[in-house]
């Protein structure tokens, strides 16, 4: 099928299947899946600028479906999502400016590649270690203790508790997430860092934001996944518009991909009900590694996937 905006010939079935797979990942983990969608579009001959912009548009659609499903399951904190969207947009602009600076210096590809490999591998290693530690702690507990502890927990809860004690006004409460008081600046800072990575490395940067919400803000994993998806709707819409006016979005491709994603995102979102927080975080571990592998492949061969 011919897509006139990007000038690409792609099978709509291929696009729907790619959308379906990314939809499952997005619904389950709260990530955009740009590390798969970008290379998948590129493999079909779509130019990189269109792959990046179109992927963002597709992320908006998929996140709407997954966030609606998560909201029905009670996994979305609207107040937290709206605050985070502000920080993310600011950070994304900062990341884009950093890229422009590196472009002028002439070493953008090398720096971005090395930073992304280090970040992706660090996240995976940390989440693997933390997830295993949490599960080991849980398995050591007595049966009665385990039954009493139904709520989500992490081996890094003491960090989140210390951050909750930080009195930096204005303090706000997040009753949906079970946070009595937290500094607004901490939330904005976490979102800003996520946005910075989004602008710097591309995609929605859910691989940074979802773990940050759990470990730094102390949000339960299921709520972090749902709220991250809601937040992505706002920040990815902003990114889509920004790319669209630069001529980087083929909305027809995104619409076709979204038909598959609508089913996948619902399956992913419903599946989170059957897994405990630490297990979702453990399953998340391979995702950043896939991103790192793609970057290493690109660096070694000079070909983008």
């Amino acid at each position, binding site marked *: *099928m011919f897509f*006139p*905006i990007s000038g690409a010939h792609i099978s*709509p079935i291929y696009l*729907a299947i790619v959308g379906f797979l990314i939809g499952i990942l997005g619904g389950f983990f709260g990530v955009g899946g740009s590390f798969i969608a970008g290379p998948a579009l590129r493999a079909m001959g779509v130019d990189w600028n269109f792959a990046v912009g179109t992927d963002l*548009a*597709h992320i*908006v*659609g*998929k996140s*709407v*479906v997954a966030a*609606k*499903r998560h909201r029905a399951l009670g996994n979305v904190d609207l107040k937290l999502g709206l605050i985070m969207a502000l920080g993310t947009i600011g950070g994304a602009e900062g990341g884009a400016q950093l890229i422009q600076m590196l472009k002028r210096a002439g070493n953008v590809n090398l720096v971005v590649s090395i930073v992304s490999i280090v970040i992706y591998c660090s996240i995976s290693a940390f989440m693997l270690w933390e997830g295993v530690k949490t599960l080991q702690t849980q398995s050591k507990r007595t049966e009665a203790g385990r039954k009493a502890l139904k709520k989500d927990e992490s081996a890094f809860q003491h960090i989140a508790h210390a951050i909750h004690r930080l009195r930096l006004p204005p303090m706000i409460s997040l009753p949906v997430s079970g946070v009595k008081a937290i500094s607004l600046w901490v939330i904005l800072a976490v979102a800003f860092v996520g946005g910075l990575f989004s602008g710097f490395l591309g995609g929605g940067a859910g691989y940074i934001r979802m773990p940050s919400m759990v470990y730094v803000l102390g949000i339960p994993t299921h709520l972090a996944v749902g709220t991250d998806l809601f937040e992505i*709707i706002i920040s990815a*819409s902003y990114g*889509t*518009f*920004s790319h*669209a*006016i*630069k*001529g980087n*979005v083929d*909305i*027809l491709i*995104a*619409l*076709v991909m*979204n*038909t598959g994603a*609508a*089913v996948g995102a*619902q399956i992913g979102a419903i599946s989170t009900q059957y897994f405990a927080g630490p297990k979702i975080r453990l399953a998340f571990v391979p995702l950043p590694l896939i991103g790192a592998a793609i970057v290493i492949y690109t660096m070694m061969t000079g070909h983008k996937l």
Partner: protein
Amino acid sequence: MKKETAKTFRAFLIELVIYAVLVVGYFFLVLHFLGEWLYQLETRHRYTYGGVAILLIIGQAVVLEGVTTFLLRMLRGRSE
């Protein structure tokens, strides 16, 4: 439990088939009627195109979510 899983799985497969038929029809509808218009918009009015692109993707997502939820409910209801 196994019976319940088999029912859910069968309902899901039927949903996929119905959904696939609807989606194929939708491909032709959107690409045939909107393709040329969106292409012209993208070439001549980028800001309008940006706004229309976001509205289309969000609108489609809301409709598709509604369709899949309705199909799943209807099929599960019938299989029970």
